[in-house]
């Protein structure tokens, strides 16, 4: 099995704030992590390799410091890393991101692409489906169980739905997006971390990718962020002491009735 896992380095979103005067994001001092949904994807790929043999390639598009998440995925057990990095890739929306990834992945020989369901910074869940379309393979999103057929030509997965799950079968190659419940991602151990530094690590820029610049990054993005602003601050809520339960509840029900909420 040749498996490709596209991952993303994201800021710890709970710590991202806005500078309300300049309208820009304050990223200084905010730690960067591997997108948590991508950890499920990396783990799934490694488990499939352990069961069926093969090779796991981890790929990311991001600034030089995104190397950290590639090294982590290699330390977990990935075999090689591809780092698409160039100022020309910056400002990409989901389509331009998927396009840039697809330009590299389509040159590879692969059976399966596993993405995380979504990245926790943008929360769009769009790169997976867009990448599947650009690679010309079927997609199965929100996967929490994976089985490979004996001849390794088909895949059967549990796809989460709003009511439960569907059992879905597809012929390989295909693209899956991983959700919580698929597995428990392993922590890299010392051996893994040492070995990671020796594993193949390829850096690819716009020139080596060989794609027209106008299709990349901000220029290649169909959508454009016109304005960002902080959300309206919630006005201080009412907090009451529940020592006298009856009185507190009366006040709450009065509040709900007045709001027309019940």
């Amino acid at each position, binding site marked *: 099995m040749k498996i490709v896992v596209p991952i993303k380095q994201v800021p710890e979103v709970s710590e991202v704030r806005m500078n309300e005067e300049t309208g820009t994001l304050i990223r200084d001092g905010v730690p960067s992590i591997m997108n948590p949904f991508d950890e499920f994807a990396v783990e799934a790929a490694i488990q499939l390799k352990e069961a069926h043999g093969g090779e796991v390639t981890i790929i990311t598009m991001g600034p030089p410091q995104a190397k950290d998440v590639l090294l982590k995925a290699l330390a977990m057990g990935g075999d090689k890393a591809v780092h698409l990095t160039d100022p020309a890739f910056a400002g990409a929306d989901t389509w331009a991101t998927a396009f840039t990834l697809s330009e590299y992945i389509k040159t590879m020989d692969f059976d399966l692409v596993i993405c995380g369901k979504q990245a926790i910074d943008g929360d769009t869940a769009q790169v997976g489906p867009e990448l599947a379309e650009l690679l010309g393979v079927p997609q199965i999103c929100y996967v929490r169980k994976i089985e490979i057929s004996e001849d390794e030509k088909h895949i059967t997965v549990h796809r989460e739905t709003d009511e439960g799950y569907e059992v879905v079968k597809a012929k390989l190659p295909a693209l899956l997006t991983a959700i919580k419940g698929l597995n428990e991602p392993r922590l890299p151990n010392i051996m893994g971390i040492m070995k990671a530094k020796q594993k193949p690590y390829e850096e690819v820029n716009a020139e080596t990718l060989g794609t027209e610049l106008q299709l990349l990054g901000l220029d290649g993005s169909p959508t454009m962020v016109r304005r960002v602003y902080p959300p309206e601050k919630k006005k201080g809520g009412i907090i009451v002491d529940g020592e006298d339960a009856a009185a*507190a509840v009366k006040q709450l029900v009065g509040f709900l009735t007045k709001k027309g909420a019940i």
Partner: protein
Amino acid sequence: MKLLYDRDTCTGCMLCPNVCNFGAIEKDGDKVKFDMDKCVYCGSCEEICPVDAIHIERRAFDKSKVLEYHDVWVFCETNEGRLRSVALELITEGRVLADALGEKLIAVIIGNEIEHHTDTLIHQGADKVIVVDDKMFADYTTDAYTIAMTSLIAPRKPAVVLFGATGNGRDLAPRVAARMGVGCTADCTGLEIDDERQLVQTRPAFGGNVIAEIITPARRPQISTVRPNVFKPSEPDTSRTGEVEKADIKISPVQVRTRVLEKVREAVEGMKSVEEADIIVCSGRGIKDPANLELPKQLADLLDAAIGGSRPIVDLGWLPPTQQVGQSGRTVCPKLYFALGISGQIQHIVGMRTADTIIAINKDPEAPIFSVADFGIVGDIFTIVPELISEIKRVLDAR
């Protein structure tokens, strides 16, 4: 847009004439030829070609072409024949957008035995309903639904296409957008038409710490997925009339590359989906024992609410994953949200902070959930909630 056909690469397999919904491809000797007057660049032939002999060049989108696109479309999702509530919300909002543009609002409904919903959609505000009704669409599959949507969109050229940001909506919309080479904006919570007749799409990012306004300057259609429960459906007007168009979409079984073998319901019978519910009663670690979930269930029954759980209690298996609210579960925005015994870790808060009204009940006065609550009671859920149930009963009975 340009269609590039590499006759030398073509093997003459004849898959593409069979998948073209527009009769634009015919046999030409041992290869094929294209009738460019009929071709709408829907992408079906490009997708099916096993040797990549067909390529549609969509990149050079001519900005003046933007003016050729008219009308607002709403993809109306069905589930086993049932119309999902988000469809009515989007028809209501779509009506506002269509009126702002002075154009038509068109509902698109795809499924099996779903034609009886057309009146509902017209009464809700649609000027026209396009119906695709076939056994092929009984189960949702990305491939069949993508072909249906792109085959409808490509020749009719809508300016805006809205999808509900449900599981399937978020699977389908980006795939349709990518096939047509246009943008897609996920999980919108606000939509508006600006002075330049562009769709301004508002959405939260970075866990709700930031709100972004997104536009699609030079490509059409403008495609968005919209969160359920953000827009309130208007009162249906049963005197409204509208047009119904039945569209036949030709799909070959080889074009549908995934097969649904089985559907498993996990949500306990009668348990409403947290994404669609107006009211959610959500429990956290403070519930202590799965047997105690009876208490929130009673409150939920009384209010016709959905039952939700925070990550710890779903991880313990006390509620199915479909009911988990928070970053690793579902993002919800109901009218009313009860957080019972939930401390309010940031991962939970990002999944529910957009609820209209948040009620928190927790023993710990320092619990972060109180910082987002509109009304909080510092107290034990096992004394407060039974009291709350009887007080709500009393008020409802008195009405």
